[in-house]
């Protein structure tokens, strides 16, 4: 049937899938974009975006009933009253934890692009060369020069605000004006830079919040309410940015409630020839076909789909001939850092206006430029300085009229930062199919077996103490470190389960994100990452997706797919 055939099929509509849909349609292809969850229409479906904070019954908190319904989500901040609709149901979509793994999923059009933290940093050759340099895992098949033009390209469209800093480990990009540091952050930035001779620097976070208008989008309005959906289109999401561009071509078909259960593999042509889709509501199955398929279902789910496909040829699934499919699962380890009080006379009469949706960033400085630690790789920090709000008083002594009026005023300046550390790829950190359990749709679920190792444990000591050292150097008072304990998955940066490489015997994808065993299948979400670096990864997924889409269309024209 003609309607079941497209030029390309994209599985998943989050950050990567939205980019794939945009790029492929803009290059003239008729594209089917499949999303397992419900539709979320830009602005119209941001039902809480305009709701006053006092209109939430529990003021945004969580109830016992919510905790019972969401046994995984409740482990961290995602379980809250304000945007619960955009986190996947733990009950409908269970998974097996061989070791504790917190999997926070967004099953709707836009995926987690609606919910993401929006920090957007380039990787550099410090990262792309890391595995080769350290003899860890396999070498990335690409270098910074391969991706740089694609970073340029996606930054312009996505709208990344940031400052030019000329730091080789964190290349500059095509930025809109930065969201400036506030006076507390600025003061500490100056002291850190001078004390550490410019080796450690506190810069404005680079974030996918626009500071200049973009087509169909207003700049950020400083509500800091991104995770409710932005009625101004102030931050990058599929809905605000890539989906409207793809729709504008007239060549996009978006199908929500479409769970892809298997890729049909043609062993003679060595190509995927069909995509099997289950309607999430009726559970009816339909097949679609296209010469090009992009898997952008998120790292774990794209790997799951490969594992469920071509099992007549390879029992462990398409891409498993390398022995690496589902292995090398990575995340960023964090929840460790330091904080303190900024007691500076010069700040007592200073405040800020507007709610900035980002703070500062301290780019990596460890294990580079002559620094050598007893662990590999490094970490960056995200933090902010703020005047304390009424919550400061929960631990303080006091009640009554003066207490109340004081609490309605801003308190002292405090500052804190959390480190985000690189997690090494390890073959032992893996996912697989748990054939003993099925989800709501009768599909076997994933089992996850992943833990951090000695390298991460050693790094965490620096991650806490270095921040304390910087705060001390900046004259911050009452500096204390913290380590709130981290379990893989909490970073919500799942990566590596179908890594890129130079050799089909040791990697699932080639340098163009093509599955070695099926070159018409491209995997461009976090699954493709060969190492994790320490930077937030989404910008890299955008760039790699645009790059792969460009290549796919060229190959299609050359008759190679």
């Amino acid at each position, binding site marked *: 049937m003609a309607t079941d055939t497209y030029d390309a099929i994209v599985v998943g509509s989050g950050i990567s899938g939205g980019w794939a849909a945009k790029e492929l349609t803009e290059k003239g292809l008729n594209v089917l974009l499949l999303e397992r969850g419900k539709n979320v229409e830009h602005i119209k479906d941001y039902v809480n975006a305009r709701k006053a904070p006092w209109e939430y019954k529990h*003021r945004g*908190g969580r109830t*016992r009933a919510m905790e019972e319904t969401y046994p995984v989500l409740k482990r961290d901040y995602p379980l809250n009253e*304000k945007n619960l609709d955009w986190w996947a149901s733990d009950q409908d979509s269970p998974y097996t934890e061989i070791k504790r793994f917190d999997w926070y999923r967004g099953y709707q059009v836009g995926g987690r692009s609606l919910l993401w933290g929006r920090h957007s940093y380039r990787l550099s050759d410090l990262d792309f060369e890391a595995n080769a340099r350290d003899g860890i895992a396999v070498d990335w098949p690409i270098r910074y020069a391969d991706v740089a033009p694609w970073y340029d390209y996606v930054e312009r469209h996505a709208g990344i605000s940031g400052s030019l800093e000329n730091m080789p480990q964190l290349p500059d990009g095509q930025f809109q004006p930065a969201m400036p540091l506030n006076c507390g952050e600025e003061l500490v930035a100056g002291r850190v830079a001078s004390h550490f001779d410019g080796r450690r620097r506190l810069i404005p976070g680079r974030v996918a919040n626009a500071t200049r208008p973009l087509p169909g989008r207003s700049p950020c309005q400083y509500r*800091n309410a991104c995770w409710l959906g932005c009625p101004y289109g102030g931050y990058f999401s599929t809905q605000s940015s890539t989906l409207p561009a793809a729709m504008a071509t007239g060549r996009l078909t978006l199908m929500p409630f479409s769970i892809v259960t298997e890729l049909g593999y043609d062993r003679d042509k060595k190509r995927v020839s069909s995509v099997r889709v289950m309607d999430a509501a009726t559970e009816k199955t339909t097949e679609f076909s296209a010469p090009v398929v992009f898997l952008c279902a998120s790292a774990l789910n794209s790997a799951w789909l490969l594992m469920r496909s071509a099992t007549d040829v390879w029992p462990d699934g398409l891409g498993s001939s390398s022995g690496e499919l589902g292995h090398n699962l990575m995340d960023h380890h964090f929840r460790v850092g330091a904080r303190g009080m900024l007691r500076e006379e010069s700040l007592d009469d*200073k405040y800020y*206006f507007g709610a900035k949706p980002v703070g500062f960033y301290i780019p990596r400085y460890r294990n580079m430029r002559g620094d050598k630690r007893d662990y590999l790789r490094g970490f960056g920090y995200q933090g902010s300085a703020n005047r304390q709000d009424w919550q400061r008083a929960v631990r303080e002594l006091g009640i009554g009229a003066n207490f109340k009026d004081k609490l309605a005023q801003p308190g002292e300046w405090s500052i804190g930062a959390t480190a985000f550390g690189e997690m090494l790829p390890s073959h032992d950190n893996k996912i697989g199919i748990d054939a003993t359990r099925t989800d709501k749709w009768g599909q076997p679920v994933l089992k996850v077996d992943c833990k951090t190792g000695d390298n991460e444990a050693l790094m965490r000591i620096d991650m806490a*103490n270095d921040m304390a050292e910087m705060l001390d150097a900046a004259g911050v008072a009452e500096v204390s470190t913290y380590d*709130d304990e981290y379990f893989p998955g909490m970073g919500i940066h799942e990566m590596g389960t179908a890594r890129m490489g130079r050799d089909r015997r040791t990697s699932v994808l080639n340098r163009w994100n093509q599955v070695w065993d099926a070159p018409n299948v491209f995997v461009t979400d976090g699954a493709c990452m060969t190492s994790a670096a320490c930077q937030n990864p989404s910008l890299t997924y955008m760039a790699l997706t645009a790059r792969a889409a460009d290549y796919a269309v060229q190959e299609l024209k050359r008759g190679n797919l």
Partner: protein
Amino acid sequence: MAADRQQSGLITRREAILRVSAVFGGAAIVGQSVMLAGCAAQPASETGKANGGALFRQSDIELLDEVADTILPETSTPGAKAAGVGPFIAMMVDDVYNENDQQIFIAGIKDLQSRCLRRYGAHFQIVTAAQQLDLLERLDAEQHQYMESRDDDAPAHYFRMLKELTLLGYFTSEIGYTQAMRYVETPGRYDPCVPYTNGEKSWAPHA
């Protein structure tokens, strides 16, 4: 140097949630933060209302209103009672607290009432404002000392619960947002450094 701080600087899971909520802009997790330690130990299915659906009587809610209004009284801006904090506290304890914490809370307000009877010979709702304040200041000192020295796994003091829920209920109410503090849903701009004169109210965030 920094290394010795590692121990003393360790923060509790409870505080971690507070900070996380602050990072994400949500202020409204304080009430629930009280019982996170308890949640981990107690399966969710065993939680529930302590006494068959009627956790609070009307007189309890009136008491909660009075207590909240003593903690955050009317000044140049309305107090906690006007902001509906009494019923809010009851609802939160009912919906959010686990059974253990509910029992501590219920026993706590009985204790508060009996202390008031012993000290002033009348219920909290009818003693003078000065007596109300005196009683709660004593309780506040007691909870503060207890909370600073307790083991991490020990339950919270009931007056800490009351105080937290009062602050949460008040400062996240419409009165709290728009009268006690200043609220602009859509600031439209960011000024990283503006002059501040003592006494000026906080800007309350939209989310």
